[in-house]
């Protein structure tokens, strides 16, 4: 089962990378603000049903993919074909 995990810096947490991207975009003439840079992790998960896959990925997030002090995450399961 294909699963995507979107990891974001939590609101209020300073994101130097986002700030650098935003400043660069402004240098290029784009009127932008609020740039935040996160991380996308695509996974192939062995699971018999979506809820099992979701539970498994929840554990992956807690143990490795996100640091709960500074990051939030969203889990997205691909539509079943």
């Amino acid at each position, binding site marked *: 089962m294909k699963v995507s995990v979107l990891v974001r810096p939590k609101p209020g*947490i*300073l994101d*130097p990378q986002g700030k650098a991207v935003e400043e660069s975009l402004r240098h290029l003439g784009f009127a932008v603000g609020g740039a935040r840079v996160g991380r996308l992790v695509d996974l192939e998960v062995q699971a018999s049903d979506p809820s099992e896959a979701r539970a498994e990925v929840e554990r992956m997030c807690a143990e*490795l*993919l996100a*640091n709960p*002090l500074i990051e939030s995450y969203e889990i997205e399961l691909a539509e079943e074909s």
Partner: protein
Amino acid sequence: MTESRPRVAVVVFPGSQDDRDAALALEALGAEVAILWHAERELRDVGAIVLPGGFSYGDYLRAGAIARFSPAMRRVAEFAAGGGLVLGICNGFQILCEAGLLPGVLRPNTALSFVCRDVQLRVERTDTPFLTRCEPGQRLTIPVKHGEGCFFADAELLTELEEAGQIVLRYDGDNPNGSLADIAGIVNAEGNVMGLMPHPEHAVDPLLGSTDGALVLGSLLDEIQARTPVPA
């Protein structure tokens, strides 16, 4: 009769850089150093473990996030849980935070640039095994060299750290990375695990501009000797 030297293990991860400098500095201060490859678990008769600086696993995902799964880290966690002395320098500090052996997390420097220079530190505690050779309030000159040294904890955790006296070193005046409350080094609640971003192993010889790092590493060696039972 041979005098026993304090034994210290220095763990080497793929991407560690300062393991040999740490070993050299510790040996110069009288220690016997055992290099522990990250895939090993065997650790015999050491009084302390040092996690050196560098870029373990290329800092992939988050600095220190992958190294914490090394077999050697399981041993480090057991050692720390048993009261063993563990010192994490720079990347070692990041690994200890990711492993949950120290609170908080180290984030990219707020100024977005890698910093590599001497900084002034203020000693906040001298009753920790890692700083006994210092005077309270003493200023130390020790270099930093990192891109992710900005210590962060939420307001609740920061209050907890302040109240428990777990902040043992602060940047004095010049905060090189935007670290919260000028935090340069902390200890765990039990006091046997310390992490700091500055590199004491790079400040142990007058040729390097400062010998203040020897106060930190020397304190650690003193504590090992103090804990070692004298053979009858």
